[in-house]
C-alpha cells in the first residue's frame, strides 16, 4: 500500500509538473516547473531501489543542469513566438504511445524490475563503484566518457575565453 501511494505521488508530481512545464505561457515558469519533474523522477528512482541514482539525479539535473537552463533563460530574452499547441499534443501522443508499446514488449524481461518486486532495497553505491572501475566491466567506457567530458570542458573554456586587443598585448 505504501509503495502504491508513493508511486502515485511521485508519478503525479512528475507528469503534472511536466504538463505544467509544457503548457505554461511563461517560459521561466516552465523552467521552474521542470524542477518538480526532476524531483519526481528522482523519487521514482528511489522507489525502484536506485538510491545513488536518485541522489545523482537531484544533484546533477536539478542542482546543475536546471540552473544552467535558468541562466540561459534569464539572461536572454527569447522571442515570444507563437506556441503551437497542436505540436505539443502531438508530441505527447507519440511519446506516450511509444512508451506503452515499449513497456508491453519488455514487460516480462528479467531486467525489467517493478517496485513491488523489491523486498528491501540495498545500498547500491558499492556496486556501482565496483562496476564502473572493474577492468572487465565498464572501466573503459567510464574513462572514455570522462575524457570526452574533459574535451568538452576545455573546448567550452576556449570558446568563451577573453580576447585581447592588439594594444593590450604590447
Amino acid at each position, binding site marked *: 500500500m505504501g509503495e502504491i501511494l508513493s508511486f502515485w505521488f511521485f508519478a503525479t508530481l512528475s507528469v503534472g509538473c511536466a504538463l505544467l512545464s509544457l503548457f505554461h505561457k511563461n517560459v521561466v515558469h516552465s523552467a521552474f516547473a521542470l524542477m518538480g519533474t526532476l524531483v519526481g523522477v528522482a523519487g521514482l528512482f528511489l522507489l525502484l531501489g536506485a538510491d545513488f541514482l536518485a541522489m545523482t539525479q537531484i544533484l546533477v539535473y536539478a542542482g546543475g543542469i536546471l540552473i544552467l537552463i535558468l541562466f540561459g533563460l534569464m539572461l536572454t530574452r527569447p522571442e515570444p513566438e507563437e506556441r503551437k499547441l497542436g505540436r505539443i499534443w502531438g508530441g505527447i501522443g507519440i511519446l506516450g504511445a511509444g512508451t506503452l508499446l515499449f513497456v508491453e514488449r519488455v514487460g516480462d524481461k528479467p531486467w525489467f524490475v517493478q517496485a513491488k518486486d523489491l523486498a528491501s532495497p540495498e545500498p547500491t553505491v558499492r556496486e556501482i563503484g565496483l562496476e564502473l572501475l572493474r577492468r572487465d566491466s565498464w572501466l573503459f567506457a567510464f574513462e572514455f566518457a570522462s575524457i570526452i567530458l574533459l574535451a568538452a570542458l576545455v573546448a567550452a573554456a576556449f570558446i568563451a575565453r577573453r580576447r*585581447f586587443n592588439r594594444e593590450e*598585448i604590447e
Partner: protein
Amino acid sequence: MNQLLQEPTQDGSQRTWFGNVYSAIRSTASGMGVTLRHLFSKPVTLQYPEERPIVDDRYRGVHYLEQDLCIYCDACAKACPIDCIDMEAVRHGKELEWKTFTVDYQKCMHCELCVYPCPKDCIHLGQEITHLAEDRSDLVHELLSYTGLTEEQKVRIAEAEAKKAAKKAALAAKKATEVKEPTEAEDPAETQDAVETENPEEEQKDG
C-alpha cells in the same frame, strides 16, 4: 598569448600558486588570532545612562555657582557672547536677596568667557555633561541653591537696620544737644563745616 597566463592583479601581490596558498592561510590565521584577542578583551563601550564618562578637571560642562560669593555685579552676563545668563536680586544694604540666576542651555556654547571676568571667582563650568530635558523650559537651568533671604541674612539686615537706627538716634541726639549751645559756637562750626565740605570736593576735583 602571455596575457592569458597572467593573474588578474599585476601589483605583485599574486605570486606563485603555492605562495598564494601559503600567504592566504597565514594571513587568515594571523587575522583570526587578532580577532580572538579582541574577543576576550574588555569592550570599550560605556553603557550610557547608567555609566557616565570620566572627564578632565578642566572640562567645560554645566555651570555651577558659588552663591554666597556672588556680588551681583552682572560681569558674567555682560561677558556672555550669546546672552545666556540672566540674574535678578534685590540689595538690602550689603545683603542680597536672590530671585533668580539662570543659564539658558538652548544657547550656551560652553565657551567659558563668563568665568574669567568674575571678580569673586564664583561661577565655574563643572564636569556635568548632559542637558537631557523633555521640555524646552527644562533647558533653562536655575543655578541658585536657595532664593530669598536666609535666617542669618535677616539677622544681619536687622542688625544693620538697628545700627543705622541707633546711629540716627545718636546723631539726632547730638544735634539736639548742639542746638542748645550759643550761636557764636554755631558760626565757626558752620563755616568750618562749609569749608570742610568744600575742601573734600576740591580735593576730589583735583584728584
